[in-house]
């Protein structure tokens, strides 16, 4: 209790994320059907018609419905990309750190190669080539984000692998791959997971930037897509890009704040023990 009170930022972050989760879960109940369906006159300003509280966009679609459904897509992209990046990174890092030698060398040079190419450029090229859909965007973001977790996991594994329990596992004759994945990986995971808030946040931002460049999935609503749609009327109907823009900034902020709170919290606990 004292810990949370000393970090009000973390509370705010968790609050934002909770609200967002509720939005995402409630989207289909509150706004059933396709959020892209045309519901009224185009470019209706907010707070004019209470059946369309946030007004409508260029084609007359309900902005509030889009915002709720967008929360779902943005969260899904962020979480899925982070999960994929961490999974791939952790496995690659563990293998490299545990195997050492030529395997380590090869995996690390591949990691270097991915880190040498600007990640946004890689995501952009990948999405243009494969064709944008939500899954492709998630893969593209994961492709450019797995190197961080891989390096952290490897460093962690290097320090763990000489410990007693690993030697013990060797003595009882466990297969090295089994040792790597069942004994070492779980112990190397906590510092890798600490990266997740940063990856989730940057995934949401990268998705928005890709949509901004016209590389979004046209069958789904995302906040980035809404900003991109709204920017042609940025001067005459600014609410169309400001509303999803604020949602985006709040979400990313929430993810950071909550992530920092958790990291600081664990640091405090470690310090006490």
């Amino acid at each position, binding site marked *: 209790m004292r810990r949370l009170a000393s970090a009000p930022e973390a509370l705010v972050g968790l609050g934002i994320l909770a609200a967002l989760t509720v939005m995402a879960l409630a989207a289909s109940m509150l706004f059933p059907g396709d959020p892209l369906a045309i519901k009224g006159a185009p470019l209706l300003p907010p707070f004019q018609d209470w059946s369309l509280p946030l007004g409508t966009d260029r084609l007359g679609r309900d902005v509030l419905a889009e915002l709720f459904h967008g929360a779902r897509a943005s969260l899904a992209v962020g979480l899925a990309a982070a999960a994929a990046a961490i999974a791939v990174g952790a496995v690659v890092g563990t293998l490299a750190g545990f195997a050492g030698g030529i395997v380590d060398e090869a995996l690390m*040079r591949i990691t270097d190669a991915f880190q040498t190419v*600007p990640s946004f450029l890689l995501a952009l090229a990948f999405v243009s080539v494969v064709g944008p859909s939500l899954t492709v965007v998630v893969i593209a973001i994961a492709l450019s984000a797995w190197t961080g977790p891989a390096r952290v996991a490897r460093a962690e594994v290097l320090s763990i692998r000489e410990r007693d329990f690993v030697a013990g596992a060797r003595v009882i004759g466990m297969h090295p791959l089994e040792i790597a994945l069942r004994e070492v990986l779980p112990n190397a995971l906590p510092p890798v997971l600490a990266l997740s808030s940063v990856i989730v946040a940057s995934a949401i931002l990268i998705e928005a930037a890709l949509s901004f460049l016209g590389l979004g999935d046209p069958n789904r609503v995302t906040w980035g897509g809404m900003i991109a749609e709204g920017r042609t009327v940025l*001067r005459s109907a600014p609410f169309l890009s400001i509303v999803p823009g604020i949602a985006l900034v709040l979400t990313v902020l929430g993810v950071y704040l909550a992530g920092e709170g958790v990291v600081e919290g664990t640091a405090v606990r470690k310090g006490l023990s």
Partner: protein
Amino acid sequence: MSRAFLLLRRRLVGSVFVLLIVVVGTFLLLEAAPGDAVDAYLVSTGGDAGLVEAMRQSWGLDQSAATRLANYLWALLHLDLGQSVAFSRPIRDVILERLPVTLILMGASTALSFGLGSALGIYAGARPGSLRDRFLSTASLALYAVPGFWLALVLVIVFAVDLRWFPISGFETIASGKTGFARAADIAHHLVLPVTSLGVIYLALYLRMMRAGMAEVWRLDFIRAARAKGLSRRRIVLAHVARNALLPLVTMLGLQSAQMLGGSVVIESIFSVPGLGRLAQEAVALRDTPLLLGIILVSAVLVILINLLVDIAYAFLDPRVGASEAGA
């Protein structure tokens, strides 16, 4: 000295493999793309079957992918980046034209974010937990959460359209005939908004790292010793705390050099700055494989060089590197 030399040699050998992976990977990615350079070209012209066939032939696209990759690598061995299909000019020329622009943009953004970011970080970290620390750390987090393109759009409308303090777009005044200092001032004037849009997110990053690093250092024994010796607080902050907290920022500088080029894709197109990021986006859209390869190669070499410099600087700055080098 020999340590730095060994590090250099190891890095260079590794870099060759890294570059090879980058080149082959990029080539295969673009090869998998639907549509080639001729398809991209025909979008604006149209044409009949015979014309399409003739163009594929004259651009060498009728050859197999393996042949083209082999030819590319062979030419690369001779330091020849080849011919751009989209611009029908040597790729070396196309890239050299844009490289200075990119270097200026990146350099200015890095200077802004690193300089101001670490300064503000020191200011915040000098009194951990104080009001100004809380304010700066939350404000930087908010800045970190704002998408760069969004910030750019707002900056343009406020400072270029409404206030007219800065030009809306471009790298310098068109055909102005300016030279020397006047030209440099003109370019600087044009780059204020793009540099701000590109640098702000990293400014926030450096601020936060500096602040966090200083918080760590405050707890260490030698600071207590310094305080016990009765050194002034200002002296302790600058000479001991900040100096030690600066090291991770230097590492970050190397890591971020690659990311900034990615971020500049959007910023360069919003501000019509003729840099490499925008060129790379065009190369993807026009399916100009050799041009994209050239850009990625050049930027990879730049990134590798910057990281090498950072490592060498680090090796000289921090005596502890020698001990941990075995694990690197």
